[in-house]
């Protein structure tokens, strides 16, 4: 029997639960959930207080994962990804934990960065929110309050304007404040103050944007939607009326913990995160007073499934990379970058990258990292002209670029770090700390950006076109220039050395001067 579909699965081990989604994807790209599971495990309370995952919690996790594996074999699923986020990512003993999970269950767990998690999750949004494109065009604020952190993303005219991660999560608040909670009877004021002090700057930033639509996501959303929406049915997206949301807020503020558990029928660990989640969301609800709150019922597992499906067949409505680039540009703007120079270096880098494919053998994903490095390579000048590349590196490293893994971010940051005078060396801990494959990739990209940057050394964009010829083990870069690019030529020659070191070929620059009319 020829089957016209694939079965895929995504697993997430988050701070407060373990989830799995098994889905079938037809060859025309339709995704249908076959199984959806969720099991509460309080890993976060370990990490957020002691910094480590306890052995007890590990065993509990493994028991559940073994059951999930059983179900995977039931559906004969070969194609799956299992990711650990939040609590495990932040635990100091995460390597041991991941290793033990592998030994005990046979599941290879990847530790996923916050940005990658959110990016993957957001990839699934169009599947559950049919008007996602329209909302993004009109202006959309996504508040994604996880247990460990909250991600704020704003879209205007269809593209990502800004995204920011804040270490204020529903569960983290409770853990962090647990010592103080015993010293006050006014818990809600304590929570409010704590949340306010963490969100004040974001508010200022968002004020400039028009964001009439609000989507809330994250661990508390399932509980909130369950309490606000009736009847309880498994829908992909639930719409909450802001009035009932506010009413729930009031109940949660005024009622005791025990009363909430009893009357709302919530288990204790859910009641615990209800109030902080509500307070976080309310901050953003009050900003724009949207007519309705959208709550797509999504988790990382949906994102993983969509991502895996994307590798197998064409999916509809997937943009992706653009978000990382648009938010890189907005970040560069924030640091008052020299836009023309930056664009020149970006374009030159792309031209070189595309022309030298046979030489470097890298993928489009790597080109994205190069582009990000190029856009932000001089951003550090905002902090100090001296050693600006060092600050550019830091800016990228601490940036929130949707969809980038921690390793990818490191590569993009290295591209910026070594774009000018310094070349990578084993003495740099961050560079030598990368894994060998990434190090090589970074070196290749650095070799390219150095040439690209050299071609506009004067920041005057004298060079109007670039053509690359590769023949007979030579790389000839032919450029048109309106005026004599003397400085560029000098810089090019000095940067050519590292290129030769990496690719074994010394590039040659040939200038064809345009006659001024």
């Amino acid at each position: 029997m020829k089957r016209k579909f694939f079965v895929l699965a995504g697993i997430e081990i988050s701070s407060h639960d373990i989830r799995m989604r098994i889905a079938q994807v037809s060859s025309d790209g339709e995704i249908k959930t076959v199984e959806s599971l969720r099991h509460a495990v309080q890993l976060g309370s370990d990490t957020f207080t002691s910094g480590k995952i306890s052995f007890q919690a590990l065993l509990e996790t493994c028991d559940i994962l073994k059951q999930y594996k059983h179900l995977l074999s039931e559906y004969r699923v070969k194609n799956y990804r299992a990711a650990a986020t939040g609590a495990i990512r932040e635990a100091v003993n995460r390597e041991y934990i991941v290793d033990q999970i592998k030994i005990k269950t046979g599941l290879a767990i990847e530790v996923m960065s916050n940005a990658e998690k959110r990016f993957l999750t957001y990839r699934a949004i169009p599947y559950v929110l049919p008007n996602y494109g329209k909302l993004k065009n009109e202006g959309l604020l996504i508040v994604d309050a996880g247990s460990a952190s909250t991600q704020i993303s704003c879209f205007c005219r269809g593209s990502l304007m800004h995204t920011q991660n804040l270490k204020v999560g529903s569960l983290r608040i409770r853990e962090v404040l647990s010592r103080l909670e015993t010293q006050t009877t006014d818990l809600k004021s304590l929570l409010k103050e704590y949340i306010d002090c963490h969100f004040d700057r974001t508010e200022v930033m968002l004020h400039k944007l028009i964001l009439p639509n609000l989507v809330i996501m994250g661990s508390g959303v399932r509980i909130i939607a369950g309490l606000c929406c009736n009847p309880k049915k498994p829908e992909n997206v639930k719409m909450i009326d802001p009035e009932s949301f506010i009413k729930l807020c009031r109940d949660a503020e005024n009622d005791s913990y025990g009363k909430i558990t009893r009357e709302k029928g919530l288990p204790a660990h859910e009641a615990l995160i209800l109030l902080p989640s509500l307070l976080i969301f309310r901050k953003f609800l009050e900003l724009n007073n949207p007519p309705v709150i959208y709550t797509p019922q999504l988790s990382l597992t949906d994102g993983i499934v969509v991502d895996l499906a994307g590798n197998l067949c064409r999916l509809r409505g997937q943009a992706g990379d653009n978000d990382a680039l648009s938010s890189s540009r907005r970040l560069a703007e924030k640091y008052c970058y020299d836009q023309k120079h930056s664009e020149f270096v970006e374009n030159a880098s792309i031209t070189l990258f595309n022309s030298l494919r046979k030489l470097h053998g890298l993928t489009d994903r790597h080109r994205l990292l190069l582009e990000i490095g190029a856009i932000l390579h001089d951003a550090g000048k905002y902090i100090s002209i001296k050693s600006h590349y060092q600050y550019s590196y830091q800016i990228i490293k601490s940036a929130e670029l949707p969809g980038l893994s921690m390793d990818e971010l490191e590569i993009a940051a290295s591209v910026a770090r070594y774009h000018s005078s310094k070349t990578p060396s084993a003495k740099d801990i961050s560079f030598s700390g990368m894994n060998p494959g990434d190090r090589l990739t970074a070196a290749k990209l650095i070799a390219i950006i150095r040439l690209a940057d050299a071609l506009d050394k004067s920041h005057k964009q004298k060079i109007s076109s670039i053509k690359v010829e590769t023949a007979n083990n030579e790389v000839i870069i032919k450029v048109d220039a309106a005026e004599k690019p003397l400085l560029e030529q000098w810089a090019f020659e000095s940067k050519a050395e590292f290129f030769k070191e990496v690719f074994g070929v010394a590039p040659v620059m040939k200038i064809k001067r345009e006659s001024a009319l």
Partner: protein
Amino acid sequence: MTKKLYKNHELYFNRELSWLEFNDRVLQEARNKLNPLFERLKFLSIVSSNLDEFFMVRVASLKDQVNAGYHKPDIAGLTPQQQLQAISDRAHKMVREQSSLFRRSLLPAAAGKGLRFNVPGNLNSEQSLFLENYFKEIIYPVLTPMAVDSSRPFPLIMNRSLNIGAIIKQKKSKANIFATVQVPSVLSRIIELPGNDAGDHSVVLMEDVIIKYIRLLFTGYEVICTSPYRITRNAGLTLEEEEAEDLLMEIEKSLKKRKWGAAIRLEVDHEIDDRLLRVLKNALEISDEDLYRITGPIDLTCLMRLYSLDGFRHLKYSSHIPQIPPEFLKDGEFGASIFETISAKDVFVHHPFDSFEPVLEFVRTAARDPDVLAIKQTLYRVSGDSPIVAALAEAAEKGKQVTVLVELKARFDEENNINWAKRLEQAGCHVIYGLVGLKTHCKVILVVRIEEDGIKRYIHLGTGNYNDITARFYTDMGLFTANEQIGADASAIFNLLTGYSEPPDLYRLEFAPYTLRKAFLALIDRETENAQCGRKAKIIAKMNSLVDGQIIEALYKASTAGVQIDLIIRGICCLKPAIPDISDNINVVSIVGRFLEHSRVFYFYNDGAEEVYLSSADWMPRNLDRRIEILFPVEALSNKKRIIDVLHISLHDTSKARMLGPDGKYRKRSMRGQKPFNSQDYLISEGVLAAAAMHPAEPEIAAATDRDL
């Protein structure tokens, strides 16, 4: 105000007394001369086994409550102490009627049909000789007489065992000694004797034989008096899910006071010697209200054995052959694939009128089908040598993923359950024992199959257990479907049961203890609202027991609003019908007949868009709050129509149906000179006719068809 209105104790029956009324209806079937003789004996035996369970669980629980100092009155306003007193009064009356019926009516009737109950003193010489040999060779070796004296304490008397107590004394001594011997349970209590010349069957009871030869057990002693006796103990098993939460806490607090395994009933022969009775009452701490003096044999459960005696077929119900629904058949056999049938349309089955075979075939086909990935099933009570268990084991051996959710705590069945659970595990099934504190009572089979264009799920949902034996005499309903949403729900429920996942939101099913109670209340309230708006509103519900206070309140409210409510409740009903302005629109009937009414069906008029649901749950707190139960919709028009028909047929029964009055008594409806209508018999004949219509090979029908052509 309305809330308070329905809280009045006067509006409710006590559940224990209501249960006793149910048992009385079984007794009436034993009395009913229109029933075949052996069926009447069987009903009489059921009265006894029912009472045994009632004492072990319900009476035991009430005694626990009294011991724990729990005095909260029940919904009908009776304290545990008052309930015990009322139960004792009613049960004594029932037992008197039962034994009198046996002696005065059934024994003579049996003798008239060639079955004689004899006593050892009244036999011919051949029979006496046989009996003497039987005692010496068969009975004597397994007897263990025990005496009580200063060095030997009162022995542990097994729950529900029949014993013979005796007062003996040494020939030269004056001291009386109490001795006891158990009537061995490994041997049949009914001993068949060689017949007389007329070819009649003749039986004696083993206790009479032992008493006759009792001197042989106590050589060197003088036997002063003997008498059979039997005790029932607190089973202490299933209390948790039966009772209210505050009660559980109360009992937990005084756990030490709880008398595990205490004797709660003593049955003795009415002519028992006073000295002997005194010993027993003291040793077992039995008060007068728990003492039952019985004229005639103690423990009539033994009559069930008679039923299997050869040669009395004419004194039983005519045999009934369950039909296989025609949807499944092709040329008189199961068609190419049961999956194609189910894929094409939902198929409804109504046992025992429809055969249980399709359910077995479903599991067997799944076991052998190469495209089946997984089979998941709940098992509550299965038969001894269950073909379901065999099919599941076969599937696992063939490499299928088989998950079986076994409920070990099915009442009094633990040992049996553990045995076949082990067998499944050995075959490679993934056997799971359910969630702590929640009995898995829902009945679901899920088959996951990989097909050309995707994963497809096939589901069977039922109202009764996956037990091929009881499916022959319990009325239960089931639905086969390939509905995607129901499939997703079934998967989610299994993930919950296996502990893989937390309670999920479901598409089509409602499930206890999470959404079921709310769903029932909402369905009832919707009718109430419709009635309040002047629209037609109607509820028909069929179940085993109605106990839940919240549901009853909702029904009273609905009745007051003008909803027509018909309840078909076989057993306990705490709702009081026909109270003016409260329940005048509620009609309660109970059917006790050849088959044990067991299906749970819920019909709502819903302003013309009628809805029909089936469930594994009764309207009892234990089903709604402490068990995993499901409620599922039946949507295909033809299936819905069939179920509504069954409800109406049951409501029109004038033969085995009795109406509940506001006094708590059940009475048959007046037939106004019409022929009695027996709903179960009607459904049997209807099933046979429908099956016959599917086989044109039958001559008359073939001829008719020819003519029509």
